[in-house]
């Protein structure tokens, strides 16, 4: 049975960015056991499964690409138990898409819960959920028709030429039931106000099978597109391949044997804010939902 979470935080602002000012304050009411995650039994004999899930996913990806686009459905699963909160994915995303300051398609939240010395800490990577019924698309297209669309493989896309300006950005952001999905591109450089703008910032970013200079994406709304240019070239999204904890899975949900399908079917996976009924393509895995996520997400 899949647990349903609501991302609306009821009691207090619980999630903060890893890089943000505060990694959660401890609520006095939440004293919990120090014994976490560990399920108590050791597999015997303890043998390492020398599997290479990256290669398996790559192989599945190639299989999926053989099919026509409408026959595949991309999905991402994030096993938060394995996330170490390193934010390698965030930087990989910036580097892959040559993103300007203020924009990253992926952030990792850090949550500390409990009171000294009975503590828990979680890391929660989030990005655009690539919803099957995305509320942002209608909201954006109402203001500027053709701003956003949904590809047959489930990826929600933005037309950078059309989706310009704060108004459409804010409308889409407001309509989105998730935080940290949409970003506004102010066209800045990381090396502005230094002795020289560096060459990597002058390179064009390759997204949606096109190339964009920084000028061209200025004032556009930006968001995760599952690294579609990577996946269509037989590579995994940048965040997935760089994940140091191998906490992320990516693949074709229409292939019942794929790793992501296994996770989707598993009892421990869930979607955030299912109540919004947008059918997100990104799922999460965690133990003890009642004791963790559900404490703050209704």
């Amino acid at each position, binding site marked *: 049975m899949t647990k349903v979470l609501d991302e609306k935080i009821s009691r207090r602002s619980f999630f903060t960015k*890893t*890089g943000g*000012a505060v*990694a959660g304050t401890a609520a006095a009411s939440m004293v919990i056991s*120090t014994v976490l*995650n*560990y*399920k108590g039994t*050791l*597999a015997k004999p*303890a043998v*390492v*499964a*020398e*599997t*290479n899930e*990256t*290669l*398996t996913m*790559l*192989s599945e990806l*190639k299989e999926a690409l*053989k099919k026509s686009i409408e026959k595949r459905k991309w999905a991402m699963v994030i096993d938060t138990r*394995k996330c*170490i909160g*390193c934010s*390698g994915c965030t*930087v990989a995303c910036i*580097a892959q898409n040559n993103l300007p*300051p203020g924009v990253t398609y992926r952030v990792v939240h850090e949550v*500390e819960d*409990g009171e*000294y*010395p009975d*503590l*828990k*800490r979680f890391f929660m990577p989030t990005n655009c959920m690539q919803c099957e019924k995305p509320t942002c698309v209608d909201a954006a297209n109402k203001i500027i028709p053709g701003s956003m669309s949904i590809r047959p493989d489930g990826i929600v896309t933005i037309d950078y030429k059309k989706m310009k300006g704060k108004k459409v950005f804010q409308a889409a952001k407001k309509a989105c039931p998730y935080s940290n999905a949409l970003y506004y591109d102010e066209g800045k450089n*990381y*090396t502005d*106000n*230094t*002795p*020289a*703008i560096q060459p*990597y910032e002058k*390179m064009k970013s390759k997204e949606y099978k096109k190339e964009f200079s920084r000028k061209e994406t200025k004032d556009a709304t930006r968001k995760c597109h599952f690294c579609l240019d990577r996946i*269509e*070239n*037989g*590579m995994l999204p940048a965040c997935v*391949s*760089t994940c*140091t*904890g*191998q906490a992320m899975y990516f693949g074709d949900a229409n292939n019942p*044997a794929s*790793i992501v399908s296994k996770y989707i079917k*598993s009892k*421990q996976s869930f979607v955030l804010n299912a109540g919004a009924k947008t059918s997100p393509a990104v799922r999460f*895995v965690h133990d003890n939902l009642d004791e963790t996520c559900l404490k703050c997400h209704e």
Partner: protein
Amino acid sequence: MKNENEKIETGNNRREFLKTTALLGGGAVVLSQFSWAQNLIAKANTGSLTPAEASQLSLAENIVHSVCLQCNTGCGIKVKLLDGVAVKIEGNPYSPWTMVPSIPFKTPLSESANIDGSLCPKGQAGLQTTYDPYRIVKVLKRDGKRGEKKWKAISFEQAVTEIVNGGKLFSNVKGEENRTVEGLKSLFALKDLKVAKEMSAAVDEIRKKKTVEEKKTAVEEFKKKFAQHLDTMIDAEHPDFGPKNNQVSFVWGRLKAGRAEFIKRFISESFGSTNAHGHTTVCQGSLYFTGKAMSDQFVEGKLTGGQKFYWQTDTGNVEFLLAIGSAYIEGGYGPTHHAKKLMKNLVDGKLKIAVVDPRFSKIASKAYKWIPIKPGTDAAFALAMIRWIIENKKFDVKFLESANKAAATKAGELSWTNSSWLVKEDGSFLRASEIKLAEKEKRQNKDGKEWEFDPFVVLRNGQPIAFDPNDDKNAVTGDLLVDTKIGEFKVKTGLQLVYESAAVKTIEQWADICGIEAKDIIELAVEFTSHGKKAVADPHRGVAQHTNGFYNVLAVYTLNALIGNWDWKGGLIKATTYSIDGSKEGNPFVFGKMHPNKITPLGISIIRHDVKYEESTIFSGYPAKRQWYPFASDIYEEIIPSMADAYPYPSKVLFTYMAAAPYSLPGGQTNIEILTNLDKVSLYIANDITIGEMSMYADYIFPDVTYLERWEFHGSHPSIPQKVQPVRNPVIAPLTTTAKVFGEEQPLTLETMILGIAEKLNLPGFGKDGLGKDRNFYRAEDFYLPMVANIAAGDKPGDEVPDATDEELKIFEAARKHLPKTVFDVQRWKAIVGEQWWKKVVFVMNRGGRFQDYEKAFEGEKFKNKYGQLINVYLEKYVKSKSAITGKKLAGIASYFPIADVTGKEVNDEPDGFKLHMITFRDITQTKSRTIVDYWLSAIRPENFVMINSADAKQYGFKEGDKVKFTSKSNPEGVWDLKNGIKKPMIGKVKVVEGIRPGIIGFSLGHGHWANGSSDVIIDGKKIKGDPRRATGVHANAAMRLDDYLKNTCLLDPVGGSVSFYDTKVKLTKV
């Protein structure tokens, strides 16, 4: 299990395989990785999958494999290039750091091109270290006082000439109009190889003299014998200071193999200075030097030859990881490979983690148990566990009883200890001849040299037995807990001494010292002894970087010895590399023979390492002016302060490479004061990428290239089971300007600086025939490519890598088409290694190094790249040595010592109002002094914080975000005095957390810069504005406690040499 396995191996159904993958804690799967991995890669690369508009970035010809250097982990990288610009860095799938398990080494490049491994955020941001707007590209010369941040760009030729010839180099600077700087030329005093060798032998003789009088006589003899050459000496009355050459020092921060040999060749083997010093003690010196002590071997009558290294956990197979002061997924050599292995085993239910650390580290968030211990009490903790384990007889008797190699083999072990060896009351081992158990025996070594063997002794069932520790035929085992008398000698075993050291306090008393509960210690001891060999107590910086660091580490490693986990899968393992120096059979380039006129440096180093105070000509009773270090080296915090004290002798010229001592060291501000004193350091030449926290005090800065533009051999770390040698090699065109050296145009790099000086000084071992007959040494690659050939050759004939195919040769060249001739010239490169080795060199470089396949690292449950030698839990050599300050014998066994200065006086500043105990930690986005240049990392972590427990915050009235100033007994003003008129206060922002022990505060390293692009500098009269984003946060090292006796350096470990990072009490004041 077996059946599942077979299904996979026959490869008839990939779905079957997927069903059995360990999803969501499912069953363990044993796989023969290399058959199916090959199939998957092949599958992934066939079929009609490649879209027409193939991404340039997935083409092998746009990829160069190399090695990261954003920290010292050494992850393999694959750099993707567009038009010669590095645009994206990925993990190298051939590297065991970045893919677990790595793809088979022989996988063709065409198949690996779109397989990306993982990297941490620093690795992902690495191209910003290269494309940094604050990099220097020309040689800079000081155009104002030291530290005044005024520079002029000068030509490479001018810089080299001035440094070599000396003169009134800074006559334009006020106060220095008449100062004459001595150049390298006059300090290159002793050049005669024969004389140097004879002097060295004569100095050895002086050292051996027992009394001051005898030494005096020997010195007079020396003066007579070398009367013609006394002008080459620093001080003829003290020949053991060595020649004037020693007044030139070369000091480095992060340095790996290749460049290490390059520097050593220059400063030691050619210039003849003994002062070539690294920075080990600021990292985890006492971890290395405990490893060295414990790996000491009995060779030809002497205990000698310990390795400067340490052991770490086989994280892929361990069942119980007790991480002590070890931030496994933030620092501690790599989140990449550790995280992948640990997280998988954790969710699969195969691993338990417990963490002993005053801070709730990230690894603690994955642990079932967090023990917030008081800093500096790790030995007390380990001794409590040791006591429980011995008293409850939970130790591995078979392992510990084995007294020699044969016994270990018989017991099914690869290594053995001296736990059962008998030790006399005076601390030395009982020898068989002393109790007439056996006669001394004359033996010959392989060179025919005779040595005397006097067997060691164990007691077995009351009977003494003589043995040879290295005997691989006659197994000898000894009783473990012995306290008896044999003849006239009172004897105890090593383990008995360990037990007695652990039994000086009850477990409750130990727990009290640690500020934790005895029941937690017992619970951990039970768990630790419940996994056979697959448990490890793993110490790191948190254990080593204290004044008692050496004995803390010894206690934790002794704890491991009790379960005998060395060389076992899931136990303690060591690093193994393919060697670069040609010392293996059949290697084409034997570097040992490639220096035609190698000089042997002689004399005591300025940090007095590898030498006993009592043997020197300046021995004058206790205390000595500064500490001496017979068992440690690379004592970073002693280098500049010893120059200030001119102890044992004055220094003149300082070279630094990748060094930021003022920033990195605790109490590093003392270095600033010394560096600005022209009398203490008369000429300072820095090699750096930017104008850094140390190089800003230099007279000349030679620009270096970054890790994406150069060579190095990164070696391995003890947690990597495979034999490896990652090869760092030029990926992009160097961004520095060029110079002509030995008639060849080359980019400004560390190597070019050295080559230029060597040319000007006409140093042996460089230039024409510099590497031997018909082997010129004109350029960096003349030195490095032969090393790659040695790696390709492997351990012995038959171990060579395959030749690169024609296709891969083409890819190799195509991927380097953007490199200028000053760096890459395929014909020249090929000529260096010769046709025979070229294709093998390309095979290695195409993969960013040589990496053994995972399956070869283990044989059953045992580790194949084994340590396999004696492990000392009792250190006889130490008991026979004294502290140069206290004159007291060193301890030879795991022991607990309170935090103290070098005189042994306990440090306690609480009565003076300094009540908060300060610790530091690693944030994954920063590597000490050098990653603030990476803006993508600052985007994640714009600043650091002063972490404080909510109870303390309440007590002191601090709120989240409050700004607080650090003060301490050593720094009551709470500032960095930059000695250029600027005092930078140590002010940080409070972050109130639960995850730190009350009474402890912490800040992460990497912020709070004052140089490195964070402040304005003037070059050629033009102001270069600093970037405030590089100056954020706080760096409170200047608050760290100085040693009351030494005064100009931090508290330190007098045995292992480590600096103390975690022994300072501070006061925080709201500002």
